[in-house]
């Protein structure tokens, strides 16, 4: 496996705020690497350093074996920033064709517009595009030069379902062509379906890394929601199992999960005059892992 991106012990502070605090990250060619984290975790700062847009305070970053911003990388790195980054007065197709003109062998801009559902907006000025159209144009601009590695900063933020799915297909195609795709996200479902490798970041550090399967194994449990405040101590559990209400209305029964245990739990909830909802048996979801790792406080 070829590593397209290697980040070691990266640090970056803005004044007193340590945005990135000793972060390690690697991304392989032909794989989707998701950098997952809550707002303010340091995801964008990290990718902006990799793109050469910001200087690191310390640490070592290699993009395709070169330091970020090195001249040969200009044609080989695709960047989709969080802010779309287009001339407000440029038309949608005009902006993409301008970006295509920077490369010797670009993708066909008209076909790319068609694929992303932007053909009807070809002549629409950027400032009149909807948020979703801007996102799709920005993605098109990032990949039009046939890069070997792309950094996509929250590529599906604000997209409707159809556009999100087309974006996912496009990302998978890039991966299948051997492109290293680095995606930042705070969308669990998206990450779970899309990423080959997940790096969970919080407060500028990596708190977990691995495949989605790696991260979600363990923690055999039944999870459900119901009326808050049920008396979990009255639940007739087999030896080795335990029940808890980690937050009001959200219940977790841990132990060896069996059909009998599920039946016991649902019968008990019914006996309390409540309805069990969202029953989830077995593996933790990526969201559970994420919340356990990064805490529940809103930031």
């Amino acid at each position: 496996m070829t590593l397209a991106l290697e980040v070691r012990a990266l640090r970056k502070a803005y004044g007193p705020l340590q945005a990135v605090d000793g972060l390690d990250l690697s991304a392989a060619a032909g794989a989707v690497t998701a950098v997952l984290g809550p707002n303010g975790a340091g995801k964008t700062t990290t990718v902006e350093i990799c793109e050469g847009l910001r200087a690191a305070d310390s640490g070592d970053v290699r993009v395709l074996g070169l330091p970020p911003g090195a001249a040969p990388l200009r044609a080989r790195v695709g960047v989709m920033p969080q802010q779309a980054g287009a001339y407000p007065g440029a038309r949608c197709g005009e902006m993409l064709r301008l970006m295509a003109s920077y490369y010797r062998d670009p993708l066909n801009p008209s076909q790319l517009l068609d694929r992303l559902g932007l053909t009807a907006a070809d002549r629409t000025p950027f400032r009149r595009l909807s948020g979703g159209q801007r996102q799709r144009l920005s993605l098109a601009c990032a990949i039009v030069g046939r890069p070997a590695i792309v950094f996509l900063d929250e590529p599906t933020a604000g997209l409707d379902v159809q556009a999100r799915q087309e974006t996912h297909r496009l990302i998978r195609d890039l991966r299948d062509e051997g492109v290293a795709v680095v995606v930042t996200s705070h969308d669990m479902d998206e990450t779970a379906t899309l990423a080959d490798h997940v790096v969970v970041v919080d407060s500028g550090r990596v708190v977990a890394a691995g495949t989605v399967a790696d991260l979600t194994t363990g923690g055999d449990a039944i999870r459900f929601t119901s009326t808050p405040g049920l008396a979990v101590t009255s639940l007739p559990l087999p030896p080795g199992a335990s029940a808890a209400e980690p937050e009001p209305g959200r219940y977790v029964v841990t132990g060896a999960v069996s059909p009998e245990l599920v039946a016991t739990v649902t019968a008990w909830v019914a006996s309390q005059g409540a309805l069990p909802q969202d029953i989830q048996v077995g593996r933790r979801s990526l969201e559970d892992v994420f919340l356990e790792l990064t805490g529940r406080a809103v930031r």
Partner: protein
Amino acid sequence: MTVARPPARPAPWGAILAAQTGMELRLTLRRGESLLLTLAIPLALLGFFAAVHVPGAGIEFLVPGILALAVMSTAFTGQAIATGFERSYGVLARLGTTPLTRPLLLTAKTLGVVAVEVVQAALLVGLGLLLGWHPHGNAGTAILLLVVGTAAFSGLGLLMAGTLRAEATLAAANGVYLVLLLLGGVVFPLDRLPGWLQAIAEQLPTAALSDGLRTALGHGSGFPVHGFLVLVGWTVVGIAAAAGTFRWQA
């Protein structure tokens, strides 16, 4: 499965420069407020002040002054405002990650400015000739002054655009435009000003360019040493300060 493919390469720099310059020009031509500033206002001022006959400011005075104003409006005011908003929209940072290098981007911007100036000069000289202007002197000297003036105003415009917020640049660039219009020897001679103010105004780039052009295009013209040196000074200060402080990200 992984399909091997050759590394992506940048287009030849000439092709990038041509595409980028075309984009800069189209964007300029689409901005109505920019055309008002760079074409309509200078032409209207030339026609108006030629008609009202301010003593000491006949057509021989007005055409060089309005040419200086036109250079200022394009290279300084228009460029500062456009670049400031490009920076705030994140365009400059994004393009900085592509094969469009900073020297290519700045060259494209400069070519766009020069192209607009050629149109401005053609229209203003044409209107001046219609209104009875008889240029003398040395066209080569005039062109040299226009080039140095463009460099000076571009440096100052980019200094402003690269350091201030876009909205602050918009306000400041228009404010400076108005001040330099009044203190630039554009529509009335500087000797109408109080002595102390005249002494200051003569060191400002607009007056240096307008008086320099008047010397170059007037009767018995020599080389406008003072104006030339003032413009060179502003060029060095403006470009050095812009290069040292320009932030590509908002």
